[in-house]
C-alpha cells in the first residue's frame, strides 16, 4: 500500500514539474523572492561571520603592517603626480565608455541566495520599483554575475553564471573564437569552443556573444583545465573558474537590457 502511495507522489511530482514548467515557469522564482527575508537572516549572519573572521585574521600583524604601510605611503606620494596625469587620461576614456556602454540601472544589495545545492541563484534587495526587470545583466567589480530571471516590486532573482541552467556566450580575451559557457554548480563553468580556438590554462574568458544578453567584453572566468578531445569532436571543451566569488558578494551592478 505504501508503495502505491509513493508511486502516487512520484506521478504527482512529474505532473507538477511538467505542468508548471510550461504554464507557470516563474512561480517558484516569485515565491523565492518573497521568502528571501527568512533565508536572508542566515545569509546575512554568514556574511557577518565571514567578515568578522577576515578582520580578526587581518589584525594579527598590525605593527608590521603599519611599517609597511608607511613605506607604501611614501612610495605612493611619489607616484601621485604621475597618477594625476593617468586619471585625466582615464576620465576621457570613461566618458567615451559611458556614451557607448549600457547604463547602470542600480546597485542592489545581495540579501539571500537559493537554498538548493544544485541551483546557484541570488536574491537582490531591489525590484521592479527600482527599475529592475527580467533579462537585465548583473555584474560586479570582479566580473559577470548573471542575469535577472524574476522580479517582484522590491526583490529580484538572479541566475548566476554557474547555475546549471545558465548559458553565456564567451570568447577568449586575447584570441578569436566564440563559444558557450554552461554553468556547472557548485562553482565551475564548462565552455564549448570551436576546435581551432587557441586557448591555454589561465586564459581569461570574457562575454562575447553576438546580439546576446550581455554586453561584450565583461570578464567571466579563467580557464582551469582543457578537457581531452575525443577523435572527431567538433568542439573544444574547457573548464573554467568564475572570477566572481558569489558567496562574498554584498552588492552587484545591474545593467540595462541590450
Amino acid at each position, binding site marked *: 500500500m*505504501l508503495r502505491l502511495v509513493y508511486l502516487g507522489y512520484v506521478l*504527482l511530482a512529474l505532473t507538477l*514539474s511538467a505542468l508548471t514548467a510550461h504554464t507557470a515557469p516563474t512561480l517558484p522564482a516569485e515565491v523565492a523572492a518573497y521568502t528571501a527575508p527568512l*533565508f536572508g537572516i542566515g545569509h546575512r*549572519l554568514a556574511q557577518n561571520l565571514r567578515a568578522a573572521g577576515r578582520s580578526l585574521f587581518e589584525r594579527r600583524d598590525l605593527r608590521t603592517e603599519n611599517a609597511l604601510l608607511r613605506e607604501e605611503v611614501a612610495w605612493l606620494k611619489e607616484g601621485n603626480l604621475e597618477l594625476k596625469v593617468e586619471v585625466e587620461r582615464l576620465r576621457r576614456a570613461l566618458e567615451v565608455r559611458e556614451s557607448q556602454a549600457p547604463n547602470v540601472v542600480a546597485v542592489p544589495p545581495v540579501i539571500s541566495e537559493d537554498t538548493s545545492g544544485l541551483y546557484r541563484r541570488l536574491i537582490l534587495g531591489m525590484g521592479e520599483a527600482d527599475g529592475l526587470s527580467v533579462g537585465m545583466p548583473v555584474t560586479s567589480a570582479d566580473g559577470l554575475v548573471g542575469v535577472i530571471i524574476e522580479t517582484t516590486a522590491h526583490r529580484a532573482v538572479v541566475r548566476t553564471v554557474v547555475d546549471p541552467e545558465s548559458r553565456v556566450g564567451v570568447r577568449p580575451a586575447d584570441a578569436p573564437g566564440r563559444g558557450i559557457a554552461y*554553468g556547472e554548480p557548485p562553482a565551475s563553468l564548462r565552455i564549448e569552443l570551436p576546435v581551432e580556438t587557441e586557448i591555454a590554462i589561465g586564459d581569461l574568458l570574457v562575454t562575447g556573444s553576438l546580439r546576446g544578453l550581455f554586453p561584450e567584453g565583461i570578464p567571466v572566468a579563467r580557464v582551469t583545465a582543457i578537457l581531452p578531445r575525443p577523435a572527431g569532436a567538433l568542439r573544444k571543451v574547457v573548464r573554467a573558474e568564475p572570477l566572481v566569488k558569489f558567496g562574498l558578494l554584498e552588492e552587484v551592478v545591474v545593467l540595462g537590457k541590450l
Partner: protein
Amino acid sequence: MNALLLTLFSLILQSLVSGLLPDWLSPPDFWFLLAVVLASRQNPYLGLATAFGLGLLQDLTSAGYLGFHALGLVSAAYVFYGMRGLLHWEEPVARLVVLLLAFVAKWGGYLILVYWMRYTTLPPSTWLGVFLPELILTMLLAPPYLHLAEALLGPGE
C-alpha cells in the same frame, strides 16, 4: 510547536552554512535531514506527505522546478521507512546506513525528474561535483543535528 521551531531553525541553518562555506563546496542538505527527522516521528503516510510538502517548499524557495526536490525528499522518506524495518534506527551505525541509503534515494528521485524533464542542464559532472560534497557534509553533520532534533522533539519511534 517544537517541530515548527526545528523547521525554521533548519531553514535558517541551511542558508547560514551555505553562506559560510566557500563557493566550490556544496552545502549539507538540512532539508533532507529535517524530512528524515520528521518522518521518524510520523506514520509512513503522513511522513511521505510531510516530505513531499517540504520538498515543494524547497522548490519554491530555491526558484527551481516545482516537484524536483519534492520527488527527492519523498523518495528519501520512502526508503527511510523501508530501511527502518530492516535496521535499528536507534543504533548510531544503523542510523548512518539508513541516512546514507535515504540520501542516495533522494538523488534517485532527482534523477527520475531529470530524465522526465529531459534536462540537458544537469550533466554528470554536476552531479558528482554536488553529490559527493553534499553527501559527506550531510553525513558529518547528521549526528549533531539528530541529537538536537531529539532534544527538541523527544526520541523518535
